[in-house]
């Protein structure tokens, strides 16, 4: 085992282009727009999904501001309906589903596999442009008449409303294509492009989870595609499959929709778990406890995800036996989820934990995901679901999972890998301030909504009884704190880009593979296909050089002290 090549590579030979990092290897707009480099494509996705996040966030703030007081506050009911629909649709289809897999996954999957690229680089670029194309459709729907159906597009309303349902669903259909192609690409990459010695039991947990995610993407997304296509045709040709006026069955639409959209929540959460496994290992400097269990629980979740879709439909008119079966199956999901949480906690216990900003998000993930998961149990229980269905309780539950889980995982990963992607360090103090605001704001916003919902406040309502005002006000107040937190974070990253200090190759002293190349990585990732001789978390097998290459002074001291304490 030796140190990685990038940092210590001899400068004697002449073709420098081979050594240039991927950001500087070639220049100009075209070299980015036409790039086949998975790292650049990952960065382009990153910019795209962050833009979507900003747009979705603005719609969220419109919704929250409208709900500050009963009656009209800033917008009329129509606009309100459009705002929450756009918020949901943008967040789900444009932001959260591509966020970790397409942005971070594209960048890091090949690096973690010791590969030069994904299996199909051209397809990868195509996926990105398909994503952009889908986003244009969504944008087109916004500038025409927007959509007021909610992101679920339930029939029969969606076949009748005069808004731009076709443009938006066509957009989602196209985005689905992008998601499928990324999934296909990653599956082939994980199977066929692993470096010699990197057998399945040595795969980073990030890779395991992204792999499981890809399987869901490939198997579930086409069902959404056909559902949306049928909806489009229903509007255009009046097929009569979903429209009850023509003899169709609107509940069938819900089955189809949730057959995708339930697995889709695992497309969202598995990548979040992927990031968190890496964070926990790196910042407690320890092998993940029960590595194989954690890996297999990702696969188990991927499979279970397909069996529980109808828990969204307990009150939609299914037979009571179906309701019972789906309720029972839903509880099974708790098992692999709990396996993950327990194993992370067991890793932390006895680890030498350090609390840098990525780790803070990782720990917050565990807390918030646990809250989100546990509050799911009353929704899986039939009697309580009848009371809670379509109230703010549900809104709180899924925000705890999707935002507390996935978004925190994504942001944690962004902090963690930022030095690797950009070659720059960021201001840790600002990062921690932003974290404090985001964490507080998030809990104020959404914990309040558990209370609102259990008191009976239905979701998606424009107006409400006076008695709900204090809680609504509190929740909106929280959303402003959250917003401020995100703005500070954005400022911090921009600052880092403009005048951040140069990052060493391995600023966290991680034993994981992707840190063994230079920061930012060279265009070809590795000078030669690496040979892997240990697992990604085998700190005891990693050499000093691997862990400490180019450490900034204070971190070297801290980590050394910690290791000594551990050994002594």
């Amino acid at each position, binding site marked *: 085992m*030796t140190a*990685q*090549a990038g940092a*210590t*590579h*001899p400068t*004697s*030979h002449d073709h420098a282009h*081979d050594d240039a990092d991927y950001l500087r290897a070639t220049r100009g707009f075209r070299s980015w727009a036409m790039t086949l480099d998975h790292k650049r494509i990952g960065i382009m996705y990153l910019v795209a999904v962050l833009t979507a996040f900003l747009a979705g966030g603005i719609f969220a703030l419109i919704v929250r501001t409208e709900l500050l007081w009963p009656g009209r506050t800033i917008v009329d009911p129509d606009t309100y309906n459009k705002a929450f629909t756009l918020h949901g649709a943008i967040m789900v289809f444009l932001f959260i589903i591509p966020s970790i897999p397409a942005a971070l996954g594209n960048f890091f999957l090949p690096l973690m596999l*010791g590969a*030069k*690229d*994904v*299996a*199909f*680089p051209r*397809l990868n670029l195509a996926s990105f442009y398909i994503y952009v194309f889908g986003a244009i459709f969504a944008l087109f729907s916004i500038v025409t008449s927007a959509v007021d159906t909610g992101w679920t597009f339930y029939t029969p309303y969606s076949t009748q409303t005069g808004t731009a349902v076709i443009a938006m669903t066509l957009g989602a259909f196209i985005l689905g294509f992008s998601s*499928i192609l990324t*999934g*296909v*690409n990653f*599956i*082939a*990459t994980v*199977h*066929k*492009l692993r470096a010699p010695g990197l057998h399945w039991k040595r795969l980073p947990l990030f890779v395991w989870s992204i792999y499981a995610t890809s399987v869901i993407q*490939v*198997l*579930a997304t*086409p*069902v959404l595609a*056909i559902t949306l*296509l*049928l909806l489009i*045709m229903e509007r255009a*040709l*009046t*097929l*009569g*499959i979903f*429209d009850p006026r*023509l*003899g*169709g*069955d609107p509940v*069938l639409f819900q089955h*189809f929709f949730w057959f995708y959209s339930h697995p889709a929540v695992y497309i969202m959460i598995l990548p979040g778990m992927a990031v968190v496994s890496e964070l926990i290992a790196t910042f407690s400097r320890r092998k993940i406890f029960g590595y194989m269990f954690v890996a297999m629980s990702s696969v188990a979740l991927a499979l279970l995800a397909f069996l529980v879709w109808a828990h969204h439909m307990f009150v939609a008119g299914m037979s009571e036996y179906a309701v019972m079966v789906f309720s029972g199956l839903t509880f099974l999901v708790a098992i692999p989820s709990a396996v993950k949480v327990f194993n992370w906690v067991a890793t932390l216990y006895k680890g030498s934990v350090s609390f840098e900003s990525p780790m803070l998000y990782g720990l917050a993930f565990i807390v918030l995901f646990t809250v989100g998961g546990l509050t799911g149990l009353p929704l899986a229980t039939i009697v309580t679901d009848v009371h809670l269905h379509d109230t703010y309780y549900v809104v709180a539950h899924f925000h705890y999972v999707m935002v507390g889980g996935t978004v925190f995982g994504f942001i944690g990963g962004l902090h963690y890998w930022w030095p690797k992607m950009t070659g720059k360090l960021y201001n840790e103090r600002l990062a921690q301030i932003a974290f404090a605001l985001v964490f507080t704001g998030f809990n104020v916003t959404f914990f309040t909504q558990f209370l609102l919902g259990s008191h009976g406040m239905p979701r998606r309502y424009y107006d409400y009884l006076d008695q709900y005002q204090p809680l609504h006000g509190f929740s909106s107040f929280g959303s402003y704190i959250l917003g401020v937190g995100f703005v500070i974070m954005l400022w911090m990253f921009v600052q880092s880009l403009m005048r951040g200090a140069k990052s060493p190759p391995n600023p966290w002293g991680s034993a994981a593979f992707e840190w*063994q*190349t230079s920061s930012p990585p060279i265009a*070809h990732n590795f*000078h*030669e*296909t*690496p*040979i*892997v*001789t*240990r697992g990604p978390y085998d700190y005891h097998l990693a050499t000093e050089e*691997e862990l400490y290459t180019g450490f900034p002074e204070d971190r070297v001291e801290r980590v050394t002290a910690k290791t000594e304490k551990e050994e002594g």
Partner: protein
Amino acid sequence: MATPTTESAAAHDEHAHGSHGPKWLQHHFDMPVQQFEAAKLGMWAFLAQEILFFSGLFVAYAVIRQQYPEAFAAGSHQLDKIMGGINTIVLLFSSLTAALSVRSAQLGKKNEVNLYLGITILCAFGFLIIKYFEYSTKIEHGLLPGQYWHPHMEHGHALFPAHTHVFFGVYFMLTGLHGLHVAIGIGILAWIMWRNNRGEFSKDYWTPVDLAALYWHLVDLIWIYLFPLLYLI
């Protein structure tokens, strides 16, 4: 993870510009077999996706048929079994020629590849032409989904059961989507033929021919389910 620290300039040179392998071997693969297997796996994953795409329609078919059995029987009787049957044979035959084109490619017989691909493409056009005639009869007779449903039968047939138009909704979706796949298949096969003409394939490299044929087999396979479900019930 060991990345060599002190690779020699010469070795590096070789990697960067030297004999990496045949020119169809993309730079991120180490060996031809790796590239082939990756491509094949990717294609299979894509085809799995295609099957699930159609499966949504098959489920819709099952649900609606169970709700309106008479309507389905009545609608099905309006379909032309002869034309559907001929189309089945056309597609089966084209699947054979697609498979033969792969075999010829493996043997490095460029002209034969062209021949077989050409026949496959002709069959695909044949299929679409027959479909066109079927569709125009349906349209003439007003056998259409939803609000376009205005059946007017020359021989004064008995009225259709309620909701027969839903059968035609399902029929047009299934066959329309399948027809679209046939059309896309024509494009793919023509592109492969063009590349074959440019001499891109050889005994050692025929992966794209193989993948295109796989796609074509899937299109055939789906039709093999559609034909009995729609025409023969």
